């Protein structure tokens, strides 16, 4: 298998991450335990070269590098936050990959690629300002496009993702379009059908790289093993679940084929999460805004009292609780133990709705009533957000 893509410095504050990865490097490492030989094509700058070599040195793959003029670094405050990118103007020579059976290619910041392949799986990696894909330098007998929901809607020029995916298929003469939908799973579109596959819920979620490992699993299944697109998407979903929960690379074959160690795959369904949390100062509103903004991309809708009802007096209570009643689950932001948030969590428990709490001092004894009545508590924000969506979709396993 061949992987073309970026090798970048990745840093995150919560949880703490400091590594050399990037979509290309991660996918190549993920596949290195599955395929007989993995060839990785990427660009690297002199400052990062040694660390990149040591990082990839433990994996069974061969690396083919072109020189890049400066380092590229992604800094995340949390995995749910948009990263700050250093080195946006970096450049390198083009990457050439020709005469290969299967190529997984990710869009790169610093260059483009000239590819000739039998099976090409292309992931544009460009969530903003995406007006069109330049596929003029790639030739393949079979083409699968793997994109997230925002990319699919932008490229397919339709706000309804199902129609956008169908447009994308025709526009680029693709055999398959896979739309990654975060916690919901993925939408598979071919000329003869459109089907969703669900996610495998996990007990911990570190989402950076989830899309890359999904694409890697899908590419291996569709390009090398010639599984049909739906089964290939299931393999991609399993790969993503394994990576986000353990961070383990390479991905193990028995996880992808037998789904070993994974919880039951969810059926994709619409779900609405009630976002309970304080919003009475800048920092509290900042956090609510961040979480509110990510749910759509995760495949769930959200009722945020701050956005829907707003500030007010006693009259907000009934409006907030009416909103809660229409939701499938609750995500409670518990830091500083806002009385309204805790009340809403208790109300939801009594209504029989699953509740997830995000709290920094998770071992605090004051949480006993919440924990003891079945509220799932996490000190990791991404995990809490994903779990609230999955529980709303019917995940049972804790």
């Amino acid at each position, binding site marked *: 298998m061949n992987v073309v893509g970026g090798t970048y410095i990745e840093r995150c504050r919560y949880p703490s991450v*400091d590594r050399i990865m990037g979509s290309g490097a991660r996918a190549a490492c993920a596949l290195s335990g599955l395929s007989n030989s993995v060839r990785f094509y990427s660009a690297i700058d002199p400052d990062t070269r040694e660390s990149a070599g040591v990082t990839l040195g*433990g994996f069974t793959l061969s690396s083919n590098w072109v020189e890049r003029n400066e380092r590229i670094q992604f800094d995340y405050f949390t995995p749910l936050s*948009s990263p700050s990118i250093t080195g946006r103007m970096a450049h390198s020579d083009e990457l050439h990959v020709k005469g290969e059976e299967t190529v997984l290619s990710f869009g790169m910041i610093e260059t483009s690629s000239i590819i000739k392949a039998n099976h090409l799986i292309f992931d544009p990696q460009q969530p903003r300002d995406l007006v069109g894909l330049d596929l003029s330098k790639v030739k393949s007998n079979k083409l699968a496009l793997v994109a997230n929901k925002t990319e699919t809607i932008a490229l397919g020029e339709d706000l309804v993702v199902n129609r956008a995916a169908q447009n994308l298929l025709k526009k680029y003469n693709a055999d398959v379009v896979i739309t990654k939908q975060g916690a919901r799973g993925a939408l598979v579109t071919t000329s003869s059908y459109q089907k969703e596959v669900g996610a495998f819920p996990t007990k911990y979620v570190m989402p950076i790289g989830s899309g890359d490992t999904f694409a890697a699993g899908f590419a291996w299944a569709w390009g090398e093993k010639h599984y049909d697109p739906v089964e290939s998407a299931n393999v991609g979903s399993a790969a993503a679940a394994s990576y986000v929960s353990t961070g383990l690379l390479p991905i193990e074959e028995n996880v992808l084929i037998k789904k*070993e160690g994974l919880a039951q795959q969810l059926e994709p369904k619409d779900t609405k999460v009630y976002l309970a949390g304080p919003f009475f100062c800048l920092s509290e509103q900042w956090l609510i805004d961040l979480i509110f903004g990510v749910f759509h991309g995760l495949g769930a809708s959200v009722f945020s009292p701050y956005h829907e009802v707003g500030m007010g007096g006693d009259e907000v209570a009934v409006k907030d609780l009416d909103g809660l009643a229409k939701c499938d689950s609750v995500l409670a932001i518990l830091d500083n133990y806002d009385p309204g948030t805790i009340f809403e969590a208790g109300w939801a428990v009594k209504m029989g709705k699953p509740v997830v709490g995000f709290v920094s001092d998770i071992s605090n004894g004051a949480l006993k009533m919440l924990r003891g009545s079945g509220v799932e508590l996490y000190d990791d924000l991404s995990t809490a957000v994903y779990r609230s969506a999955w529980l709303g979709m019917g995940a049972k396993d804790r």
Partner: protein
Amino acid sequence: MSGGGSYSGTPVDSKKPCDKLRFETTLASPNPGAIKELKVGDTLSVSIETSNGKKILAVLKGKTIVGTITEKVAELIRCIQEGNTFEAKILSISGGAIKVEISFSA
């Protein structure tokens, strides 16, 4: 770029004193034969090794490579080359996922 204002990035800690370097990570490329001999709480050694002609940051039980480190690579290499020693304490083992805490030992 990002919507919510420019994030200035994580604090620069590449010059952190080596004796303060401590982090948790999941080992990459775990050795399936070695996993069976491991248990939670074991302390393993960390060193720069050469494997198949490539330089790696390895975690070892005795002389057996258990897995490799892919976090804080530049810092760890610098600290080891300056003469510092690090150890890896096993925090959890779940299937092939070995979670360790890397910390300064001498």
